[in-house]
C-alpha cells in the first residue's frame, strides 16, 4: 500500500471527520436512539469540528517548518563548533561569489544589454572595407550614400552620420559631449520614438536632440528643457527632443548633418533592409555599387559591405569580457573545490555521526538534507559576504575602467539582474560544495566509521588527492594567465609613441566671434604662438588641428591621379614637429615660405610614404581636401593611440595655408593656466574645450590598462593560497593517518630525512601533475584568446607579438611560484611526520 505521502487537504480532513460523526450517529441509531437525537449526540461527543480540524492541520504544517528549523540549527551548531573551517570557507566563498557578481554586472553592461531597436534583424551598417585587410573599415562616401538613398531594391532607407565632440556651454561651464551629426532620417531608420518632444526635421539647421542621460545630467531632467536654447560649439541650437537611454549608447546628442552629404566627407551609416530582403541580396547590390563607383579598382581596393551591428564578438568588448570572465570563473572553481575539500576534511568526525544516525533508523535522504543545510548556511553567509565584495569590486572597476569603455557603460550598479545572479550563484554553490561530502558522509557504514584510525578512508583520500590536484591545475592556469597578461601589459606600456611626452600638454580651443574666419585665425595663431614662446619656462609651442591620443580626421587623397587612399589630414604650425620632438626623416619642415598664397605644401609620415609611394614621396604631388599639394618632407611616425596599433598614414599641411578650427595649442613646458591666461583664454572669443597633459594621459591610460592584469593577479594570488591550503590539508591528513606506519619505519631505522623525503615525494607528485595540467590548460586558453580577437584588438593589446619566449617567461614564473607553495604546503606536515615518536605512534590505535 505504497502511496506518496503528501499533507492532506482541508477537504480531506473534513471528510474524514464527517465520516466519524456519521458512523457514530449510525451506531447510536442502531442502538435505538431516534435519528435527530443521535445526530446531536454524535456531534456533541465530537466536540468542535473546527478546532479538531485546525489541530489536525497544524500537525502537517509544523512538520515542514520544524524539520527545516532543526536542520538549520544543527547546521549552525556544527559550524560554530569549527570556527576555523567556517571562517575560511565563508571568506573564500564570499570572494568567489562577490568577484563573479561584480564581473557579471560589468559584462552585463558590456554585452548582454540589448540595443532595443525594433526589427533588429533588418538593421545593418553599410561601410567600406579594405579588401586586403577586412578588419579595416571606413565610412562610405557621399556618392554611395546618395546612390543608395535615391534608388535601392534592397535598402528601405539609409542614414549617415559623423561622430564628433561638442562643447556644451552651460552657465560659463563648458562640457565636452560625444555626439553625432546625422541625416535626420536616422531616427526613422533606427525606429525609436523620442522620450520627449520630437526628432530632427528634414531641413532642420539649428536643432538638437539630446540623450536621456545628457538631459538628466545637464538639464536636470526637466521637461521644460525641450524647447529651450543651448549653446554648442559656439552656436545656438534649440532642443527639440530627448531620446531614451537605450538609444544609441555612447552618444549624448544629435544635430543635423547640416552640410550636404557631399561636403561632409565620409559617413558612417545605419541602414534598414526592405522587408523580406535577405542580407545576401543587399550584399549583391552593394557589390554592384562598388563596381559602379570603381572602388575596387583603386590602389587599395575597397568594397561596400554589410555588417550586422549586433554581432558578437565585436570591438574591444569581447577581449575585455573574456579576460574578465575567465579568471573569475577559474577562481570560482577553485573556491568550490577548496570548500568541498575543506568539508571533506571533516568527513571523519561526521562520518561517525552519520553512521550512528543511520543505524538508528534515519533515512539517507534525511541525512543528506541535513548536511546540505550546512552547505546552504555556508553559501548564504558566503553570498551575504559576496554582496559586500561585489559592491566594493564594482566601485573598483569603475575607477580602473579603460577610457574607451566608459562611454558605453553607465554607472555600474548591482541591479536586480546582478543580485539575482548572485542568489543563483549561491544556490549553485550550495549544491556544488555540499553534494559530494553529503553523499559520502551519509554513505559511510557504521563499522568503518567506528574504526578509530579511520583506515577505511583510503578511498576518500584518493578523492581528496584528486581535488588537490585539480585545485593546483586551476591555480596554475590562473597564474600562467596572469603572467601572460602582465607581460602583454608591460609590452604595451613600453610602446614608443613617436613623440616626447615629457612636460608636453595641449589645450583645444574654439575661436569665436571676431576670430571666426581663416584670416582671423591665421593671424591670431601667429601672434599667440609668438607670445607663448616668449614666456619663461616654455621650451616650445605649436598649433595643430589634430593631435595624438584624441580624435582624428580622415580624408581621401589622390596622388598622380592614380594612387588613392585614406589618410589623417591635419594642419600644423611650422615648429610642430620640433615641439613634439618627432624627427624629420627626409626633406624639410614647414617654414616661412609656406604661407598663404604660396604653393601648397605637405609633409607626410613614414607610413604614408612607404605605403603609397614606395619610399619616394619627396616631390610628389598629392591631392587632398580639394587641393593639390607638394610633398616637401617625410616625418617619423607618431602613434595616434597609446597601444600597439600602428600609426595611420598622415598628411600634414602648414597651418598658415589651412587654418582650420578648432585647433589645439601644443606646448612643452610651463603650466597650462599661465599660458592660457597669457593668450587671453578662456573668454568670449576663445573657448577652451579641453586641456590635458600628454604625460598624465599616457600614464592614466597605462594605469587603466593594468586593471585586468591586476584583478587577474589578485584572483591568481587567492587561488594560489587556496590551492596551497588544499594541498596542506591533504598532506596533513595523509600524515596523521599514517602515524603508525611512520612509527614503524622509524623504529626500523628510518631517519627524519627519509620520512621527509617520502612524504614530500608523494605530495610532490600530485603537485607536479596539477602544474602540468594547468600549464597545458593555460597554453590552450592563450591560443583560444588569440584566435578570437580581431587583428585590431590584437594590435591594441600586443597579443600578436606574444612570442614563445614570453610564454616561457610567464609559464616558468608561474610554475616557480606554484612549486614554492607546493613544497611549503608539503613540508610542514612532513616535518610533523618526522617528529613522531615511534613509541607513541605504535601505541596509537
Amino acid at each position, binding site marked *: 500500500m505504497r502511496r506518496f*505521502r503528501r499533507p492532506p487537504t482541508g477537504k480531506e480532513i473534513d*471528510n474524514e471527520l464527517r465520516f*466519524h460523526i*456519521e458512523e457514530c450517529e449510525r451506531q447510536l441509531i442502531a442502538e435505538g436512539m431516534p435519528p435527530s437525537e443521535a445526530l446531536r449526540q454524535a456531534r456533541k461527543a465530537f466536540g468542535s469540528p473546527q478546532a479538531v480540524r485546525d489541530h*489536525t492541520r497544524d500537525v502537517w504544517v509544523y512538520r515542514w517548518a520544524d524539520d527545516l528549523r532543526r536542520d538549520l540549527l544543527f547546521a549552525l551548531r556544527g559550524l560554530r563548533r569549527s570556527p576555523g573551517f567556517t571562517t575560511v570557507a565563508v571568506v573564500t566563498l564570499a570572494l568567489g561569489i562577490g568577484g563573479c557578481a561584480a564581473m557579471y554586472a560589468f559584462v552585463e553592461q558590456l554585452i548582454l544589454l540589448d540595443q532595443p531597436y525594433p526589427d533588429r534583424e533588418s538593421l545593418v551598417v553599410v561601410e567600406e572595407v579594405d579588401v586586403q585587410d577586412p578588419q579595416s573599415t571606413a565610412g562610405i562616401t557621399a556618392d554611395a550614400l546618395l546612390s543608395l538613398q535615391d534608388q535601392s531594391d534592397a535598402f528601405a532607407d539609409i542614414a549617415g552620420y559623423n561622430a564628433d565632440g561638442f562643447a556644451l556651454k552651460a552657465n560659463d561651464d563648458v562640457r565636452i559631449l560625444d555626439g553625432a551629426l546625422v541625416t535626420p532620417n536616422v531616427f526613422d531608420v533606427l525606429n525609436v520614438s523620442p522620450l520627449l518632444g520630437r526628432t530632427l526635421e528634414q531641413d532642420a539647421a539649428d536643432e538638437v536632440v539630446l540623450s536621456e542621460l545628457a538631459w538628466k545630467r545637464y538639464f536636470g531632467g526637466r521637461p521644460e528643457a525641450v524647447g529651450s536654447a543651448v549653446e554648442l560649439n559656439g552656436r545656438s541650437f534649440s532642443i527639440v527632443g530627448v531620446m531614451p537611454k537605450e538609444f544609441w549608447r555612447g552618444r549624448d546628442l544629435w544635430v543635423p548633418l547640416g552640410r550636404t552629404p557631399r561636403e561632409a566627407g565620409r559617413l558612417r551609416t545605419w541602414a534598414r533592409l526592405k522587408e523580406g530582403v535577405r542580407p545576401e541580396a543587399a550584399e549583391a547590390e552593394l557589390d554592384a555599387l562598388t563596381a559602379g563607383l570603381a572602388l575596387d579598382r583603386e590602389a587599395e581596393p575597397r568594397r561596400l559591405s554589410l555588417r550586422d551591428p549586433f554581432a558578437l564578438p565585436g570591438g574591444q568588448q569581447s577581449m575585455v569580457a573574456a579576460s574578465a570572465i575567465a579568471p573569475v570563473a577559474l577562481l570560482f572553481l577553485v573556491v568550490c573545490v577548496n570548500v568541498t575539500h575543506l568539508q571533506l576534511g571533516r568527513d571523519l568526525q561526521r562520518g561517525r555521526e552519520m553512521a550512528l544516525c543511520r543505524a538508528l533508523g534515519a533515512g539517507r535522504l534525511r541525512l543528506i538534507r541535513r548536511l546540505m543545510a550546512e552547505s546552504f548556511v555556508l553559501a548564504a553567509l558566503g553570498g551575504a559576504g559576496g554582496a559586500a565584495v561585489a559592491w566594493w569590486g564594482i566601485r573598483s572597476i569603475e575607477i580602473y575602467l579603460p577610457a574607451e569603455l566608459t562611454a558605453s557603460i553607465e554607472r555600474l550598479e548591482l541591479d536586480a539582474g546582478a543580485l539575482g545572479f548572485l542568489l543563483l550563484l549561491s544556490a549553485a554553490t550550495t549544491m556544488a560544495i555540499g553534494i559530494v561530502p553529503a553523499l559520502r558522509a551519509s554513505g559511510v557504514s557504521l563499522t568503518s566509521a567506528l574504526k578509530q584510525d579511520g583506515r577505511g578512508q583510503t578511498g576518500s583520500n584518493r578523492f581528496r588527492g584528486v581535488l588537490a590536484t585539480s585545485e593546483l591545475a586551476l591555480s596554475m592556469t590562473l597564474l600562467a594567465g596572469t603572467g601572460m597578461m602582465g607581460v602583454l601589459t608591460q609590452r604595451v606600456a613600453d610602446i614608443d609613441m613617436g613623440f616626447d611626452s615629457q612636460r608636453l600638454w595641449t589645450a583645444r580651443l574654439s575661436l569665436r566671434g571676431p576670430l571666426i574666419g581663416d584670416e582671423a585665425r591665421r593671424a591670431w595663431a601667429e601672434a599667440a604662438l609668438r607670445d607663448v614662446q616668449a614666456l619663461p619656462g616654455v621650451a616650445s609651442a605649436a598649433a595643430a588641428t589634430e593631435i595624438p591620443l584624441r580624435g582624428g580626421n580622415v580624408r581621401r587623397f589622390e596622388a598622380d591621379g592614380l594612387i588613392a587612399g585614406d589618410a589623417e589630414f591635419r594642419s600644423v604650425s611650422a615648429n610642430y614637429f620640433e615641439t613634439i620632438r618627432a624627427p624629420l626623416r627626409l626633406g624639410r619642415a614647414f617654414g616661412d615660405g609656406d604661407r598663404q598664397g604660396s604653393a601648397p605644401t605637405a609633409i607626410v609620415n613614414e607610413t604614408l610614404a612607404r605605403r603609397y609611394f614606395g619610399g619616394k614621396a619627396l616631390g610628389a604631388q598629392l591631392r587632398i581636401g580639394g587641393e593639390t599639394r607638394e610633398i616637401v618632407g617625410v616625418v617619423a611616425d607618431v602613434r595616434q593611440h597609446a597601444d600597439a596599433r600602428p600609426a595611420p598614414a598622415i598628411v600634414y599641411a602648414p597651418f598658415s595655408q589651412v587654418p582650420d578650427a578648432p585647433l589645439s595649442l601644443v606646448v612643452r613646458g610651463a603650466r597650462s593656466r599661465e599660458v592660457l591666461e597669457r593668450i587671453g583664454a578662456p573668454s568670449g572669443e576663445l573657448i577652451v574645450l579641453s586641456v590635458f597633459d600628454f604625460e598624465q594621459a599616457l600614464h592614466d591610460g597605462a594605469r587603466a590598462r593594468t586593471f585586468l592584469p591586476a584583478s587577474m593577479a589578485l584572483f591568481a594570488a587567492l587561488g594560489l593560497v587556496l590551492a596551497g591550503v588544499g594541498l596542506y590539508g591533504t598532506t596533513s591528513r595523509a600524515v596523521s593517518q599514517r602515524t603508525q606506519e611512520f612509527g614503524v619505519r622509524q623504529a626500523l631505522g628510518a631517519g627524519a630525512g627519509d620520512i621527509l623525503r617520502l612524504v614530500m615525494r608523494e605530495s610532490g607528485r600530485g603537485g607536479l601533475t596539477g602544474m602540468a595540467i594547468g600549464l597545458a590548460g593555460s597554453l590552450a586558453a592563450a591560443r583560444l584568446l588569440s584566435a578570437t580577437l580581431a587583428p585590431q584588438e590584437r594590435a591594441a593589446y600586443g597579443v600578436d607579438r606574444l612570442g614563445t619566449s614570453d610564454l616561457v617567461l610567464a609559464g616558468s614564473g608561474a610554475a616557480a611560484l606554484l612549486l614554492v607553495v607546493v613544497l611549503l604546503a608539503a613540508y610542514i606536515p612532513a616535518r610533523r611526520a618526522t617528529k613522531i615518536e615511534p613509541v607513541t605512534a605504535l601505541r596509537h590505535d
Partner: protein
Amino acid sequence: MARRDKLQGSLDLLILRALRGEPLHGYGITAQIQAWSEGELEVEEGSLYPALHRLERDELLSAEWRETEAGRRAKYYKLTRKGRKHLDQELERWGRLSSAIALFLERSDA
C-alpha cells in the same frame, strides 16, 4: 464511568496497538479501544485525529482511502514496519515500567 485518558504517549501506544491487527478507520479505532478495554478507556475525538495524523506524518502509520463494507468512503490507517518496531519497543518499555511501578506500590512498609 469511563476514564478519559489524555496522556499523549499513552494515546499513541493505544492507537498503535489497536492497529496491530487489521487496518481501521478513526471511528473503528475508538470502537476498538473501547471494546478491548471493556469500556474503561474512551478516546477523545479531539485528540485522536491530531494523534493519527502525527503518527502518519512520522511514518509510523500509513493511510489510504477505501470503501467500507457499507460502501462509504473512509480513511483507513495501518501500521508501517517502522510503526511495528516502535510499538514493540514501547510495549516492552511499558511492560517494564508497569512492573516496576507495581513492585514499588506493593512494597510493604515493613
